[in-house]
């Protein structure tokens, strides 16, 4: 269970990216959504320890982790799949899966992980995580690394972005399987209806604040109808036109 108490993130010069966030995450799937630039990724990075909050407290299973490093939080059981996966010259897929799993990953182990994200281990384990891999391939490997860790809290920052030719259903199946194995909490930042559709709880972050938190059944209909989405009327009309 993760608890954020009055968490704020001020980058100086009066710019507050996050303001007084109070949130408890103890559900199977929690989706964070909201407009771009609203602070969703910043919130995820604060949970993973990549950014240090300027105010407030973070508790993980009752332990205050506010001042813990990225490494310490990872060891306590927090995983984070980046929105933009990092490339490494020289490090291969099997090296990263081994580092994620904390043990040497052979072809069979890599196959178990990579096949979940629609990649054939034989073709990938010796590939370097460099520019030769497409954005979609890197994204899937990023997800496989979180699978390899199997931690209590897994955070995915827009996992669907760049997932080419690989259906949402598979992605959702990965999350379901991950939960069945870890019995942990899965936090997904997403704009996609089909991902919001599996969330137990939806969190709307807008302009650095929690605009809404509640069960999917309560929040999703309003989100889909675009009520209070902040979209201007011209754009809203066009979006409506496309949907129609």
């Amino acid at each position, binding site marked *: 269970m993760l608890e954020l108490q009055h968490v704020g993130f001020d980058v100086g010069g009066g710019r507050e990216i996050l303001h007084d966030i109070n949130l408890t995450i103890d559900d199977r799937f929690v989706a964070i959504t909201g407009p771009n630039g609203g602070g969703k990724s910043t919130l995820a990075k604060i949970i*993973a320890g*990549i950014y240090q909050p300027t105010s407030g407290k973070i508790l993980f299973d009752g332990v205050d982790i506010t001042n813990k*490093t*990225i*490494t310490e939080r*990872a*060891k306590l059981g*927090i*995983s*984070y799949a*980046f929105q933009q996966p*990092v490339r*490494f*010259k*020289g*490090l*291969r897929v099997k*090296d*990263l899966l081994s*580092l*994620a799993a*904390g043990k040497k990953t052979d072809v069979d182990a890599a196959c178990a992980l990579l096949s979940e994200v629609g990649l054939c281990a034989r073709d990938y384990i010796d590939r370097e995580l460099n520019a030769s891999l497409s954005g979609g391939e890197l994204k899937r490997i990023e997800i496989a*690394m979180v699978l390899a*860790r199997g931690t209590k809290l897994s955070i995915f920052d827009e996992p669907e972005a760049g997932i080419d030719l690989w259906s949402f259903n598979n992605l959702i199946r990965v999350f379901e399987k991950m939960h069945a194995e870890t019995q942990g909490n899965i936090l997904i930042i997403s704009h996609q209806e089909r991902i919001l559709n599996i969330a137990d709880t939806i969190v709307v972050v807008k302009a650095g604040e929690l605009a809404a938190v509640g069960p999917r059944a309560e929040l999703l209909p309003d989100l889909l109808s675009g009520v209070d989405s902040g979209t201007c009327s011209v754009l809203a009309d066009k979006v409506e036109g496309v949907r129609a």
Partner: protein
Amino acid sequence: MDAIKLRLLKEVAELDSLPVGAYNIRDNGQAGGRNTTANIDIHTKTDKPGIDIIIKPGTKNESVHIPVVISESGLKDMVYNDFFIGEDADVVIIAGCGIHNAGCGDSAHDGIHTFHLGKNARVRYVEKHYGEGEGSGKRFMNPTTVVHLDEGAHLEMETTQIGGIDDTTRKTTGDVAAGASLVVREKIMTVGEQTAITDFAVDMNGAGSSVNVISRSVAKEKSKQEFISRIIGSAPCAGHTECDAIIMDDAVVLASPQIEARHVDASLIHEAAIGKIAGEQLTKLMTLGLTEQEAEEQIINGFLA
């Protein structure tokens, strides 16, 4: 051989025992063992220190090991090795030099290796340099490699120097005939006050020839590295040189790739990049549970793998 020399042998040639096939071991400037085969002959030079390695045309799937070990402090060794590789041969040559300097005198090994590859010969040449020892004496290595590739020949050179050598200047020159190709992969890591200079100059003078030089290096602490590469295209040919360096602490890295086209159909590319380890790479590995130092080690080991 004592334990120190056996360890050096393992470091530079990955040998736990005497190699299979042809070999010549140079031990503190003296002959330390030799074996020849029906296809590979090794002669001691009569006019200067060194050996001639003669590989018969058509020799396939054979290897030659020519490691050098130096454990005597203050020894300065200079050696000329000439390789004559016959037409259509396909062999692996493993060279390497390990210095253990426990004394106060400077130890040095300067090797001049000249390769003559016959038509359509293929050679993989692996060279590893390693230094150790707690003495105050410095460890120097200055290898010179000269390559002559006849038509259709292919030479792949892999050179590695990961720490332990105080000062090195690696000079490579060569000429590449029609349809021949030269690939050079260099890996260097310097620490402390070490200096490493790579000076590479190759002329492609036959149609369809190619040269590809890939250098990856890590410069730590107060070390200095220079990478000078010059590829000349005098015929329809393809040349590529790439220098990729990670700089850390107070190190200095100079990359100076040069390409010179003397023919309208010479296609030449150079790339050079120097930078510190990307912060996001460290962050990513830390989210997998590694400390910053462990993450740094993984990134460097991968980069130089």
